[in-house]
């Protein structure tokens, strides 16, 4: 699974493979990193033996991010995995009502490509916009079938989280 994480001012692409037999492969920005051991303990505490050092980190899940306490410092991290990014695009906002369905950006990012045109009929699950967010390309797909009424963005544009991208009839 590929994740994208924003910790403080820095963005990381983190790939996790395996784990089913205890051997977990982790790549940080394409570089393999050896995790010797890690254990989650009570109170959201994570013990992590990695790259020759051991750390204890309290990791708390919040609404939109994780609060990581490391060396008595609070570092806020936003985590998005590839699948969820697609899913949240798929779900969009206004799920359930087809009328006036709006595709909104699930996270801040850069619009790479708009795959539809105004007036175009779209099937549920069809790709609408490709955006780069947190170092990953994500295809945002339609949660409903419908007709494109308005395209609010163009390639090269950066968008904020929840910013409307495409509005349907």
């Amino acid at each position, binding site marked *: 699974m590929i994740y994208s*994480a924003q910790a403080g001012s*820095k963005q990381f692409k983190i790939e996790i493979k395996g784990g089913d037999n205890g051997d*977990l492969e982790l790549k940080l920005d394409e570089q393999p990193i050896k995790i010797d051991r890690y254990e*989650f303990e009570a109170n*959201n505490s994570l013990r992590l033996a990695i790259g020759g050092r051991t750390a204890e980190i*309290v990791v708390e899940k919040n609404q939109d991010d*994780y609060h990581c*306490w490391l060396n*008595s*410092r609070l570092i806020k991290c936003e985590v998005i995995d590839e699948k969820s990014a697609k899913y949240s695009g798929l779900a969009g906002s206004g799920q359930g009502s087809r009328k006036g369905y709006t595709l909104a950006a699930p996270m801040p990012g850069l619009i790479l490509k708009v795959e539809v045109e105004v007036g175009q009929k779209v099937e549920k699950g069809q790709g609408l916009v490709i955006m780069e967010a947190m170092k990953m390309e994500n295809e945002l797909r339609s949660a409903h079938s419908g007709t494109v009424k308005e395209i609010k963005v163009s390639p090269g544009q950066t968008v904020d989280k929840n910013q409307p991208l495409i509005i349907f009839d």
Partner: protein
Amino acid sequence: MLKFDKILIANRGEIAVRIIRACRDLGIKTVAVYSEADRYSRHVELADEAICIGPPPSVQSYLVMQNVIKAAKSTGAQAVHPGYGFLSENAEFARAVDQAGLTFIGPPASAIAMMGDKMAARAAMQQSGVPVVPGTVDPIESEEQCRQVIEKIGLPVLIKAAGGGGGKGMRVVHSMDDIERSLRSAVSEAGSAFGDSRVYIEKYISEPRHIEIQIFADIHGNCCYLGERECSIQRRHQKVIEEAPSPIVDQAMRRKMGEAAVAAARACGYINAGTVEFLVDGTGEFYFLEMNTRLQVEHPVTEMVTGIDMVVEQIRVASGLPLSFTQDDIKISGHAIECRIYAEDPATFLPAVGKLKKYREPSGPGIRVDSGVYEGAEISVYYDPLIAKLVASGGNREIACARMRRALKEYTIAGVVTNLDFHRKVLENEKFAAGKISTHFIEQNYSGPDDPDPKELQLAAIAAVLADHRSKRSVFSHAKSTGSRWLEYGRRMGLRAS
């Protein structure tokens, strides 16, 4: 022989714990008081008995004199230790304790009252030959009078409230044009903050150090000074780092300041532990600032360099015993430094609240931690957000500071933001290391904590991703649960988070 076998501690937090420890060392039983918010506090846990004295807000609990006295009477305590803050410098409380037939572990009410009135204190100090900052003894009544004083002592001056401290009702005047405006705002601020709009004027010392002398007096006429504490590192007019001895005080200056402090204590008929605060200018001239008629927050640094347990000594003195030392016995040995660890934003210094989800105190050579918390404890909105006092000591200042840096690194607190990063940065500052400090140190040398280094951010990102990964997988693994606890256990141990 001590007069009491049971003492009530009219305080909370680390200082209540500190006093309980001294009592225990002396074989004295303790009674804690607590508000409803403090039912599970460390001081309540440690005391032999505990009495609830009201709801969380301190005006309804820790500040209610009658509740405290009633608790002492009902438990058979013979003495009350007020700690610092709350009722500790309230002359009326000291009197009420006395009238209830109990012993107040602190100075006589008359000494508290006199030193509490800043102008009366100043006048008394001048009479006893203790140097005071040039300025007025009587309150300023008009702008005209203000001008006359300034012409005599020169700019800049400080307009100060007579009835209180903490920076309220205080104005620095740098130019004659500002007099009217500054005077007006100081008077109105003093009136609304302290119910007393009297103000006075003194010479403003631009780069002062705050150095205070610890004194101890008994009822037999003995009064000694226990050396100085350098408390120049302040934010929001509150000390955050204190040390003993001061980097600029030598033996001759210590004696001069010590003797002035003893004169100040004698001038108000002082008994027990007290602190005389001085402002020291660039030339080493010192001026009386005020006297704190209680045990100071920062008393541990004096304990570390003199070897005297000050709370034990307070109890002995209150019990009528003579001081256990003479002036000649007092030797300052080595160096000690204290960092006050607060739950507060390290950039804005605004108080923070929350639960201590992870809490581990540092230890090792030369480290002492005075705290009243534990892992899982709550830092609430009701009280001072002091978590602990971290004290490092060693053969000299360099060693003490190195140990402090080590301890600040080891200190683990999660769940509440603290000023640990602030302390780490100050302890790494070159000017601080050279002892070149003044009360303006923070505004001149500190602009907020450093960003975490990239390695830390990396680690945090990996941790967050592992947590996220695990939360997704645990949904999955529940679905194919085998039903066997042994297998589940084996999977958990073998697969860790898978």
